[in-house]
């Protein structure tokens, strides 16, 4: 019996060990493929396919029919796959599959998405086309580890098969980004998705509840800092909350900064880049340009005092730094408790979205006149200056080296970049919106694409080239012009009310946007801060959150504790960060300004 027990125990142990090592015993095809051999495979595959597809053939769908049908797994952040029926009947997916002779598998996620992508990439199980958030260090690391395909080699070897991509990756601006990320302007490993709004976008503009505005301010829209404070305090006295500046969970001092501090020539938010938490002196584009961190300046102290006064008088939402959900603020606004709310109203479409989400959804008799778009405030007759390069890299799309048919994946990318692909995504014909099937078309598409707000936001592939999901015309423009000047078709599929709302915001904003927004030279897109800067920015952000919330909320006296705040900034390396920012700007100017 003792012997039997011994054998039983050993068997159980052996079973456990066998299970532990089972995964290691089998060498999978993908994991065995080394980076270099994969790259070689990719190139070979593309050459073979290229031979099959004769010159100028890629634009012709019939030629794809002769190729092998492959399954392309495409990953994109923030979509939805919940609607199985909508997904199965998705007309865009069906059309792409038909035209390219591929099957398309979508992959998405929000929380944990980036970690999963990275894990899958390192284990040879990555999607055939996947994004990152455009982090400089990731692209370098992926290349170094041989994880991503050099798409430039494949495209340049087959210019007839990939005419649009060939044009894109060989543009001077694209090469500049290659140089920035890889050190070699001819190393193209990623599709760069560039975000640019079709109209200027900036914060620091409130939307007002017209009824409260009428009641406590005689209907007058505040135009100066003093008028705004008077309005907020009057609303507070009348039993409302004057202003919710969208500082959700202490993460967004930008709106407060843009509304109250920038017009007074300072910035109270934690610095993170040139133009964010920093104020410019000298002349842009020259050796004299200098960015200064002003969070702890005397001018900032005065602004913080104003905010503390506002808070004390009920003019500022008591949940500053606590209210953690837009929904809470929206519910308060919809219930008529809030006098003014910030939501980046520089962009007209955001006013429309806010109206629909916070107001019309709870008011059956809502009209656009119920709300008023405010204006950027002035102080001593001056507007605040918001610096913006107008464009930024939104994400990088990669093809992993574990993908055995990168040429076919590039067929898909080429298709999306072509006029045909862009027309398909945006419901256009040759770049002109198809009004004849507008709303019906989007109703079908919305089922498969999740957000269900009557527009094609977060459509699959829609931010592969344009981070703002607009139409990009690569046929008639070079890459940079196309991505920095996308076309916004949202008003074409919008309802009459939505159009009315957008126009209302546009009319108001256009009166002052030119005085507020200062466009930075394009080399500001190439400013790369060293990794040490990230740590300092993080520390400064924590310090700002800790001190400002207490100053404004009255837990700390501004006069008594301001010196501690200044010291905390100094100890965290604010001066070093300022130097890093100015050096990075100078490097970008000398390297890329031309």
């Amino acid at each position, binding site marked *: *019996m003792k012997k*039997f*027990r*011994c054998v*039983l*125990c*050993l068997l*159980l*142990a052996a079973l*456990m*060990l066998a299970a*532990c090592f*089972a*995964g*290691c*015993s*089998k060498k*999978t095809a993908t*994991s065995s493929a080394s980076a270099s051999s994969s790259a070689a495979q990719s190139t070979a595959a593309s050459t073979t396919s290229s031979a099959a597809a004769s010159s100028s053939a890629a634009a012709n769908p019939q030629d794809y029919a002769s190729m092998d049908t492959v399954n392309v797994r495409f990953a994109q952040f*923030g*979509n*939805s*796959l*919940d*609607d*199985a029926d909508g997904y199965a009947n998705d007309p865009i997916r069906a059309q792409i599959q038909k035209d390219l002779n591929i099957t398309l*598998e*979508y*992959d*998405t*996620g*929000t*929380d*944990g*998405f980036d*970690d*999963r992508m990275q*894990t*899958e990439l*390192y*284990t040879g*199980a990555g999607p055939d086309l996947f994004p990152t958030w455009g982090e400089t260090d990731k692209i370098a690391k992926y290349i170094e580890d041989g994880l991503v395909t050099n798409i430039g080699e494949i495209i340049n070897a087959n210019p007839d098969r990939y005419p649009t991509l060939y044009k894109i990756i060989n543009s001077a601006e694209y090469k500049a980004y290659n140089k920035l990320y890889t050190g070699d302007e001819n190393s193209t490993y990623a599709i760069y998705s560039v975000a640019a709004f079709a109209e200027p976008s900036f914060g620091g503009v409130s939307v007002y509840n017209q009824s409260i505005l009428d009641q406590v301010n005689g209907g007058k829209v505040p135009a100066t800092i003093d008028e705004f404070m008077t309005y907020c305090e009057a609303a507070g006295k009348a039993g409302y909350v004057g202003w919710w500046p969208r500082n959700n969970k202490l993460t967004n001092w930008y709106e407060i900064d843009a509304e109250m501090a920038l017009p007074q020539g300072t910035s109270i938010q934690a610095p993170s880049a040139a133009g964010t938490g920093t104020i410019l002196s000298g002349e842009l584009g020259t050796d004299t340009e200098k960015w200064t961190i002003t969070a702890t300046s005397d001018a900032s102290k005065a602004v913080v005092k104003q905010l503390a006064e506002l808070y004390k008088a009920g003019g500022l939402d008591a949940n500053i730094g606590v209210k953690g*959900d837009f*929904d*809470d603020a929206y*519910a*308060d606004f*919809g*219930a008529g*408790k809030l006098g003014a709310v910030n939501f980046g109203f520089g962009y007209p479409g955001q006013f429309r979205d806010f109206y629909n989400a916070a107001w019309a*959804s*709870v008011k059956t008799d809502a009209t656009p006149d119920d709300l008023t778009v405010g204006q950027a405030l002035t102080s001593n007759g001056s507007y605040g200056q918001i610096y913006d390069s107008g464009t930024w890299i939104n994400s990088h799309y990669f093809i992993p080296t574990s993908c055995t048919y990168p040429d076919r994946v590039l067929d898909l990318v080429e298709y999306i970049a072509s006029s045909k692909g862009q027309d398909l995504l945006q419901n256009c014909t040759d770049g002109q919106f198809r009004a004849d099937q507008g709303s019906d078309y989007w109703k079908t598409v919305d089922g498969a694409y*999740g*957000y*269900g*707000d009557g527009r094609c936001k*977060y459509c699959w592939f829609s931010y592969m080239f344009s981070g703002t999901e607009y139409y990009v015309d690569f046929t008639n423009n070079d890459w940079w012009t196309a991505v920095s000047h996308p076309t916004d078709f949202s008003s074409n599929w919008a309802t009459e009310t939505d159009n009315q709302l957008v126009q209302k915001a546009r009319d108001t904003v256009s009166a002052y946007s030119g005085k507020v927004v200062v466009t930075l030279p394009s080399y500001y897109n190439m400013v790369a801060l060293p990794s040490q800067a990230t740590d300092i920015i993080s520390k400064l952000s924590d310090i700002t959150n800790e001190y400002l919330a207490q100053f404004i909320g009255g837990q700390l006296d501004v006069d008594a504790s301001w010196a501690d705040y200044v010291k905390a900034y100094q100890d965290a390396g604010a001066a070093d960060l300022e130097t890093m920012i100015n050096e990075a700007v100078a490097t970008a100017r000398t390297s890329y300004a031309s």
Partner: protein
Amino acid sequence: MKKQSKNAGCRRSMLMVCGFNFYDVFVTLFCVIFGLICFYPLWYCIVASVMPYDEYIKGGLMLWFKGFDFQYYIQIFHTKVYTNSLVISVLKTVLSTALSLFVTSTMAYAVSKVHVRGMRFINALVVFNLFFAGGLVPTYLLYKGLHLIGSFWVMVLPGALNITYFIIMRNYFSFSVSRDLEEAAMIDGCNEFGIFFRIVMPLSRGMIAAVGLFIAVINWNDYYSYMMFISNKTNLQPFAWVLHRMLTDASMMNQIRNGAVSLGFTLPPPMALRMATIICATLPIMIVYPFIQPYFTSGMTLGAVKE
């Protein structure tokens, strides 16, 4: 001795005033208030989840029901994502718990027999994993090699051997189950399986119930395995993941809210929907808990007193 009792009497008299033991009153009050503070978030969820819309948007402290409106629950059970994920969660929890209890207890019983050659080494191997896990990438490779990626079983099989509860069970089998009983059973003709399933397991009901509850709760709340190893197969979403998305993912929230409108309800406030989802997520475990409570209590105190 005499001095001690005199001091104790003095303390009693100081605490006892007007027939009340103020110390006990204070302790009781403290416990009640502390308990209420702990209970209030759950109570808030319950109240908010059935609060009529007009009352909800007034906000403020919600201490008691101001009417009942079950529209959020109706909406939840009309949404396929919810119902499907509930089924997945129940299946996952039942299978994982049963499998984990079986594998962990059999393994723990075997390893508790330290007189058998090699058992100490196996025990060391298992405990080693408690301190040094393989990490995400090796784990992913292992699951990939086992063809578990993208499969329902990746949420069930990897947790079959729970090392923490393995140690608890092993110690219990080593120190609390009398070896004399096992020998008596053996003399009566029982084999090793018979001893384990007919003698040891019934004697360990309290411990099994307590461990089972813990494992069930872990599995019910687990969404990491789905998030990392399945993710794009929405028909395999566990309820904990749906709840997580409700709290963090705007698309999920919009989907549910728009669904409510299509059912004829006013566009529901997101927070109220979240509250209803939280209640739905906690209710199954809350229902199971009272049935396990007697075993749970005895299981928790097992081994507390050594004779």
